[in-house]
């Protein structure tokens, strides 16, 4: 019997503001613990929150990008629970009056069609700090946990979708599209490994035509790969439970990407009563139409528009254009590399060698060690015949490991392709002279078999040239010389 999967996402997006949502502390990642935590972030007695205008601006930009209604009056609630990385004992968040109302996001499906995913709302809130359970006292934790409040108060928008996705591929496409939108807007750095975007996935299964099944929520997925694996496994787990005569329990689950196992964190019965109530320290924020309209006018190019432009300006296929336009960093990298050289070739190299290498080394695009200018120079040397594809890959390796100048690499490592016809002719003559048996075989062979037999000579010539001979020229000269022997 068949099953339907119903998926909704809750996405935490860290906003790339300079300072925190309610204090002036820096939000930069990676500082020494608690060096970016002010009296407000530490929830010292008597301190008060002051809203950061940039966080509101970014949230409104997101709302405009997903075609949503902007909450004209945006208010904050307190969500109460005790945890050491939550200094106030409550999270300041939005419940009744979120800043972004219902919207929609279009995703591209594998079969080339598109689908609208509805956004229920997006609200502003503050991030918590981090608990450090591993050793932190010079290698000895002495049975204690450390608290780092650098992240506490970092502004987030939590984007809540409707349960409109029906398989892992759609959910991942949606997650990627949201990533693409927020990075294109410049409101989030999109760095998943640093937790800049974190996904909670609500999953349920049902028989076609039946009402929604009981859902589970898997929290804090921070890679698309984990999300895909986790959904597949959770869907199967739920189907197994039901087919074995059991019932899915409403619960919160955690997925361990390394062991590929999810486990229950808490059930509905154990869930906190968060005792939400309006935060009396913050007045409702009124967002005026003029402000919204001014922002709408300065909204940066969004991924869908950029993809269309890449197709028309650079002659890319829709598939290539979608891939390269999804992420703002990737897109601007492509555009700067394509300024000086063949755009299609740049696209091929980005989606081929570069993507493969990043993937193999589990690096984000932002960690790519090769600058756009370098890739552009590399592609230019392919276009002008200096480098064969094989040589280009060698140059790429050198760039990857830190050498910087393409032409210097070509000189230093002798990677220049030999296109001098005299030199090639000499090589061809030399190989023919040194291979009397193979020449004899070639001459006596059937016409049909000869092209295949040419491979031997090409291989010998390339070897003699240390791989530097231009293969097209070698082929042409060789064919001519061999024909002369018949």
């Amino acid at each position: 019997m068949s099953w339907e999967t119903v998926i909704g996402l809750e996405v935490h997006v860290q906003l790339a503001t300079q300072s925190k949502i309610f204090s002036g502390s820096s939000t930069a990642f990676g500082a020494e613990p608690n060096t970016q935590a002010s009296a407000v972030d530490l929830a010292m007695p008597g301190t008060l929150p002051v809203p950061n205008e940039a966080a509101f601006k970014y949230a409104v930009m997101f709302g405009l990008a997903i075609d949503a209604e902007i909450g004209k009056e945006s208010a904050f609630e307190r969500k109460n629970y005790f945890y050491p990385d939550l200094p106030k004992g409550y999270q300041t968040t939005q419940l009744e009056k979120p800043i972004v109302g219902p919207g929609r996001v279009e995703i591209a499906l594998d079969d080339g069609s598109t689908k609208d995913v509805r956004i229920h709302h997006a609200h502003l809130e503050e991030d918590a700090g981090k608990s450090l359970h591993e050793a932190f006292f010079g290698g000895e934790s002495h049975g204690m946990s450390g608290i780092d409040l650098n992240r506490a108060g970092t502004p987030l928008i939590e984007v809540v979708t409707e349960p409109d996705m029906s398989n892992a591929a759609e959910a991942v496409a949606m997650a990627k599209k949201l990533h693409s939108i927020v990075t294109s807007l410049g409101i989030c750095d999109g760095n998943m490994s640093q937790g800049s975007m974190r996904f909670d996935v609500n999953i349920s299964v049902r028989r076609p035509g039946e009402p929604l099944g009981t859902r589970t929520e898997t929290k804090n997925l921070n890679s698309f790969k984990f999300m895909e694996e986790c959904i597949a496994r959770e869907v199967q787990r739920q189907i197994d439970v039901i087919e074995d005569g059991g019932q899915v329990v409403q619960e919160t689950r955690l997925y361990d990407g390394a062991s590929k196992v999810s486990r229950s964190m808490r059930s509905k019965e154990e869930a906190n009563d968060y005792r939400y109530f309006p935060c009396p320290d913050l007045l409702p924020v009124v967002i005026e139409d003029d402000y919204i309209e001014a922002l709408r006018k300065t909204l940066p190019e969004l991924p869908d528009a950029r993809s269309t432009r890449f197709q028309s300006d650079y002659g890319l296929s829709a598939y290539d254009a979608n891939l390269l336009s999804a992420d703002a960093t990737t897109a601007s990298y492509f555009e700067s590399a394509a300024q000086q050289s063949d755009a299609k070739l740049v696209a091929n190299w980005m989606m081929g060698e570069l993507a493969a290498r990043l993937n193999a080394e589990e690096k984000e695009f932002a960690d790519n060690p090769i600058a756009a200018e370098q890739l552009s120079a590399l592609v230019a040397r392919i276009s002008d015949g200096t480098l064969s594809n094989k040589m280009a890959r060698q140059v790429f390796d050198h760039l990857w490991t830190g050498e910087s100048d393409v032409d210097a690499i070509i000189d230093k490592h002798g990677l220049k392709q030999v296109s001098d016809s005299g030199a090639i002719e000499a090589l061809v003559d030399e190989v023919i002279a040194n291979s009397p048996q193979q020449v004899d075989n070639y001459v006596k062979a059937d016409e049909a078999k000869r092209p295949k037999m040419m491979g031997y000579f090409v291989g010998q010539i390339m070897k003699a040239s240390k791989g530097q001979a231009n293969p097209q020229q070698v082929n042409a000269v060789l064919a001519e010389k061999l024909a002369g022997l018949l």
Partner: protein
Amino acid sequence: MHTKTFPNTIAELAAGLRAGEFTSVELTQHYLDRIQQLDSQYNSFITVTPELALQQAAAADTRLAAGDAPLLCGIPIAHKDLFCTAGIKTSCGSKMLDNFVPPYSATIVENYQRDGAVMLGKLNMDEFAMGSSNENSFYGPAKNPWDTERVPGGSSGGSAAAVAAQLAVATTASDTGGSIRQPASLCGLTGIKPTYGRASRYGMVAFASSLDQAGVITRSAEDAAIMLNTLASYDPKDSTSIDREVPDYTTDLGDDLNGLKIGVPKEYFEAGLDADTEKAVRNALAEYEKLGAELVEITLPHTHLAVPAYYVIAPAEASANLSRFDGVRYGYRCEDPQDLMDLYTRSRAEGFGQEVKQRIMVGAYALSAGYYDAYYKKAQQVRRLIKKDFVDAFEKVDVIMGPTCPNPAFKLGEKTADPVAMYLEDIYTISTNLAGLPGMSIPAGFSSGLPVGLQITGNYFDEAHMLNIAHRFQQVTDWHKQMPAEVQS
């Protein structure tokens, strides 16, 4: 004791300092001596800061000599111990913060420093400002200088006792449901809580954020005006403070009161009001008629709902505001915690007093799933009705007057076993906080030898007018000049 004698109002002291009759160092030393000799009877200070006070006094003398010093320069005051003072313990009257030394000062503390006021120390209070008798202090109750077997009121009991005992010329205080006006009334002093948002809450340890407001306790309306000039400010660090120009509150003190319409709410003179208190208040109202004012009976029909609404809203906010006291980052931490839950539960169980725990429980309950609508939401609706009562009343009258408290100071321990009786202490004062209005209490007579306060409630941001109304009364009466026999000698 020093041989010099000193007047006891800011206005007179400021004049004396400028006339060279005494220096701020002499004046400060005089108060420090009094505190040392007398405060064991009143327990009004939690922390005394003599060295700092004398340093500030010396700096004030230099500034005074240079001329053009603010009126408060060199005047010895003290702060309620919920205003954070950088480098000086700020306990909030709680074991929880007995070890807490903030690295920052409250904005209002900085304002007083800016104007050269000398800080003598930090004043006793009910723990986390929860109480009406100062009996909930970890440091023991402050005593009423009119009768040390009686309470000074609360929560700003130390702020009132110190001024009444002449251990400080004026003090800062805070008012969430009457915590300035009730102790001022019980100690025969002038106290004012300005409009919500008029003074910064930054650095004032929060009890109920939507109700808390800083204010002052003084010997006269004129002194209150001088103190309020410094207290009031717009503060970008407090999102609920209001960006509105602060007037000079001393300018209009002498304006006449001809044609002033005084609203007298009938609900404030019903059952439960002490007869002598009523008599004193009626006499004060008659005095105002002589000053040219007209009395208008008004109704504030939702008055009876103020106490119940308050005891949902204030504990609800407190339950969240006090969550930060968890033993993790600062303040009291239990001995040898076994795990996180043990750390939380014992630190909070041991660090908070009974009344605070009770209110946290009540507040958490009122916000719980399934009860929110019946309690918190309903209380907020009531709050809007109460506010509307006042808005309607101020269509007809300029100011509202009545008793500050239903009775004069009661005995220590008299009401501790009966929380409802204790909560009814604030029956006339609480509505003002729910509406966010400015409120004031001035001495208006005596009941059984104990001071009675007249409450003056003004319209939003009408503090200057209220101070004027209070000052005119004090020009024709001397209730505010009465002093406990013990203090006088």
